[in-house]
């Protein structure tokens, strides 16, 4: 969905067009869910959080005064929702070990081995919240720093710095597994 189409969908959704809103949900469901999955870990099912994010987005859609900023706005709702849920006592007691990506490992793809996947999951979990939030946002929706700064309610410079710092720390943690230099 290009920017013009998205803008059109937002305007139509604000006028009550549910099909248009559904198209927007289709566009953002995966990145929002993936981001929430990274933020909440095992504390809260990402599907539930994504669902509540979009329900709130629909209900308050007409409060969005800048349709072009829909993406930023929906991620901000997601962040608020995730933070609200994470402040509550944990609902689950399972171990925080995350299953690595389910891909077939190949000899030339060391990154995709289970060991590297587990190490990566641990490294991401080890990041401080601001770094992890910024890095996953930057990764999952390819968001520009300008937009990120609005989602994270900080300056563009700080958003960029958080991403750099997150990548630096991840590189340091993953270098032994990937055969790189830290």
């Amino acid at each position, binding site marked *: 969905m290009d920017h013009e189409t998205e803008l059109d969908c937002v305007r139509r959704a604000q006028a009550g067009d549910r099909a248009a809103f559904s198209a927007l949900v289709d566009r953002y469901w995966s990145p929002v869910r993936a981001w929430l999955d*990274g933020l909440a870990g095992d504390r809260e099912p990402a599907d539930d959080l994504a669902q509540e994010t979009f329900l709130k987005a629909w*209900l308050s859609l007409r409060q969005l005064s800048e349709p072009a900023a829909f993406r930023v706005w929906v991620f901000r709702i997601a962040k608020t929702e995730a933070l609200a849920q994470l402040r509550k006592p944990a609902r689950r007691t399972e171990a925080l070990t995350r299953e690595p990506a389910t891909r077939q490992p190949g000899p030339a793809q060391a990154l995709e081995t289970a060991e590297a996947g587990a190490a990566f999951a641990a490294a991401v979990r080890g990041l401080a919240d601001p770094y992890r939030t910024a890095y996953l946002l930057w990764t999952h929706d390819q968001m520009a720093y300008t937009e990120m700064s609005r989602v994270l309610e900080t300056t563009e410079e700080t958003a960029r710095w958080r991403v750099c710092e997150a990548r630096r720390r991840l590189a340091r943690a993953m270098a032994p597994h990937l055969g*790189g230099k830290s």
Partner: protein
Amino acid sequence: MNCASAESWLLAARTAADLPEGVRGHVAGCDHCRGLQRLVSAIDRQAAGAVRPGDPAARRRLDTILAALPDPRPGVRRASRARSHVLALLFVAVGVVGWLVGWATGRVAPTRPVEPTIPVVAPPDPAPNPPNSFDLRLAHFAAEVTGQDAPAAFAASLTAVAQDIRAEAVRTAEAGRIRDTPRLVAMHDRVVRHGLAGVLARLPSDTRRTVSASVSAALALAGEDLARRADAVAPAVGELLRPLAESCAKGADQIRGAKGPAAPPASEVGGGPDDELIRHSVRFVLAESALAKADASADVSAAVAQLITSVAFDGRPDEASQLGVSLDAIILKGVAGNLDRTLAGQPTAAAREEAAGIRQRSSRATQALERNLAKAPPAARAGLERALNASAKGRESVGHSPDGGKPAQKGPPWKKGDFEHPGKGNAVPPGWQKKSVP
């Protein structure tokens, strides 16, 4: 350009194309920076692939829930950053627009008070010709409910009828009908605290939280709105409205706390046909077995038959005919459908006997319509005839012929097979043998 400067660029850039020319040149000739570039690219790929697969049904569930949410009111402003205030405003907006939509489609009369719509999962398909009177809407609700089997569908129907009952209660209170309003409040209490709370407790856990939160928030808001209205109107009217506000508030608490259904109200008997219709419809949604559902449906059908008689004698043949359509659906799906399901599942002898009793009871309820037709004044005949015609299939399904209500199986009951022969082995009924002896 040195490695430290290049590293900052590398860590901030998504791809090599984002790097300035000078940095690209440095990286091309520097093993350390090239290695870092490869490493962070690999990490980014790992991050993109590390998302756990989600539940594909979650996206579909969202569509289902969204379909039930009315449009928010345009131009609602955020009164506060506090989450509760935002939600409250949203639900006010939702309610107003929901009412406007209802008004536009004729489901809510324009004189009805504005109150929030309770958003709940997918609403039932709208009727082609939405009923206008309260009785018709109740019968339509009963027909809808007795044709369903999913907790989510029950929740949608109960939510809609609770809203309708609230609107009717406000209307009667403001019209000074002091006997009707308390009855409607009790009806509302039964629907919300007994039926809706019970049904929501049965929803799958993944949707229950979201739906219950929406329902309880909207109910709480409706309660606040009614409490404010009660303060603003004449004291006598306010006294009638306050119990309704309390019913909303208690229902909201109960649903928010996921406490399950409350005990049904104490007054189980003595209500009019609409009270009975609601009571047995709620019994239907909470019934655990097909046999129990059939039993509740038979009682619902009896209540609708009474409504038909009342409306027909009131000289409203069109409404009687529409009630006949609802009666038809209740008997076909609620009674006959559930009895068929029961009998298909190898029931016990006791269950079979109970099923036969339910079938007879439902049949008797509709026979009353025929008896009334035989003795009805001319003004009532048209309504009864049209209701009987409209419900012919349903009545036939529980043992009636569509032409005048004669039993489908002729002969005395002991020849139908459902009863033990009263003569204990004799070929003729008791008394006949004695009379035949000269």
